């Protein structure tokens, strides 16, 4: 997380447009005022100073003050976290439901699987922003549907190959020969055996969903962390950017830890 914060500060500070200020483009400011704005930004813009200011704000617990809104960042991010968390949770759950419901029957087919999986291939080819725009144009669905479809399209491919391998395994063939129903095979053999891989895939879904959060929230005008991040990026709001980077890094780190602990347990 610290590395992610340091990387964000470095990335933002070293970007060629860091010292650009919208006020410099504004004709109402005189040349002298514009020069003063530039000098002020440059005097406050050394990496060490920025990092120190950030650390001070973390110690206070407010993560500094937003440049665009003029309020503490912690309050700003905190207020939007529940909206994004709800959207993420619903999107991931529905996406997995779509993917499992489609992958289970398709994976046990000997022929025609590719044709039935075509809608997911098409969905995989549609950028998130385009999917969201299409939903708005059709006046159907919303952010949860777009996120679900994105997750379903990504996970269907992996789930299908995972389940296809499972259906072909020799112990399942034995089970089928002994007259076990398809549902019993899925419940007693396939799902328990595939559970570790499924859990790892589920944690990867969080990363995919976080990436899609920004276009979805911006296009659907959802007041979440993704929209805040976009707005911070557009306004070069460094304290907000660092706080959101930290939040994203901690969520991804936690997801990674969960998936690696699964493997460790399995190995043990």
């Amino acid at each position, binding site marked *: 997380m610290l590395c*992610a914060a340091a990387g964000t500060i470095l*990335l933002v500070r070293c970007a060629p447009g860091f010292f650009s200020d919208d006020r410099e483009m504004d004709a109402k400011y005189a040349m002298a005022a514009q020069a003063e704005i530039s000098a002020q930004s440059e005097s406050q813009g050394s990496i060490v100073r920025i990092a120190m200011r950030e650390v001070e704000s973390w110690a206070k617990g407010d993560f500094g003050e937003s440049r665009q809104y003029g309020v503490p960042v912690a309050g700003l991010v905190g207020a939007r976290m529940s909206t994004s968390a709800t959207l993420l949770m619903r999107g991931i759950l529905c996406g997995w439901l779509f993917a499992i419901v489609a992958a289970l029957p398709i994976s046990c087919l000997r022929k025609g699987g590719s044709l039935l999986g075509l809608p997911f*291939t098409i969905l995989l080819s*549609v*950028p998130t922003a*385009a999917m969201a725009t299409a939903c708005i144009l059709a006046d159907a669905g919303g952010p949860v549907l777009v996120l679900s479809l994105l997750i379903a399209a990504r996970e269907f491919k992996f789930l299908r190959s995972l389940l296809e391998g499972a259906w072909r395994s020799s112990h399942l063939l034995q089970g089928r020969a002994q007259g076990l129903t398809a549902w019993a095979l899925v419940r007693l053999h396939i799902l328990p055996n595939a559970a570790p891989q499924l859990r790892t895939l589920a944690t990867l879904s969080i990363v995919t969903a*976080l990436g899609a959060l*920004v276009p979805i929230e911006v296009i659907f005008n959802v007041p979440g962390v993704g929209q805040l991040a976009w707005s911070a990026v557009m306004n070069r709001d460094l304290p907000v950017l660092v706080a959101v980077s930290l939040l994203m890094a901690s969520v991804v*780190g936690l997801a990674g830890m969960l998936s690696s602990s699964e493997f460790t347990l399995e190995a043990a």
Partner: protein
Amino acid sequence: MKRVYSILLAVLLVAAAATLLWSRYDYAYQDRDAILTPSTAQHAAGTDELGRDRMVRVAAALVIGFAGSAAAAAVTIMIAAGFGLLAAFSSKTLAAILLFVSDVFLSVPWLFLLMMARSLLPLTASPLVTAVTTFLVLAALGWPACSRAIYRGAVELRNAEWMIHAHACGLMTRQRICLQLVPHLRPLLLPQFLICVPAFVVAEANLGALGLGVGEPMPSWGAMLLELDNSALLARSHWVYLPIALLVLVLLLLESFTSEMETHA
């Protein structure tokens, strides 16, 4: 099927290049007498709100998007290969540091990093600079996922018996990498490159739709998606859906081609 997909892609690219070469209009030319027109003899796919020919702009977006993404994918694979090989052939400590760096990059969602890096350009950057920067940023941030796969492949090859034999015969590390390892890594590098191309096309489109892609008047998929927000335009002509339809078709062909390559590999 692999051949069919590649032929279709080639046909689309050649058609786009031909449109650009033989069209009477430049992608930035504004026909002020034909604003928001539907399909006409002069403008086969109509014009946008500034009177620019939509067919030419879509063709330019296709060429720019594909060429930029392919170039960015090539750069990203080179960075990833360099990084993976360096980690595989360095001491354990250095390898751990290098892999940690790639983990840090991977710990922040990709689009978010892209958005952040792309938005920090000076406000007065020219369209060409924004286009080059967008694809450079894609290349610079896309390598960590590939470098992991390349590192694993390189470590496997490094420990292969024939590589140990080459080492015992006195070949230097540089010679082993250039003459032995890189040719054997090619089957791994090509699919990685092919995976990156559609991913970069999608990333550019998403960035553009957020207003952070290639700058106007240079056409891009993302900027064309923004046209769909204009309800007046949608009511006038169905040709406004051409960019999104073509983008989905191109991505579908790229994804299918990549899947076929993976299956055959």
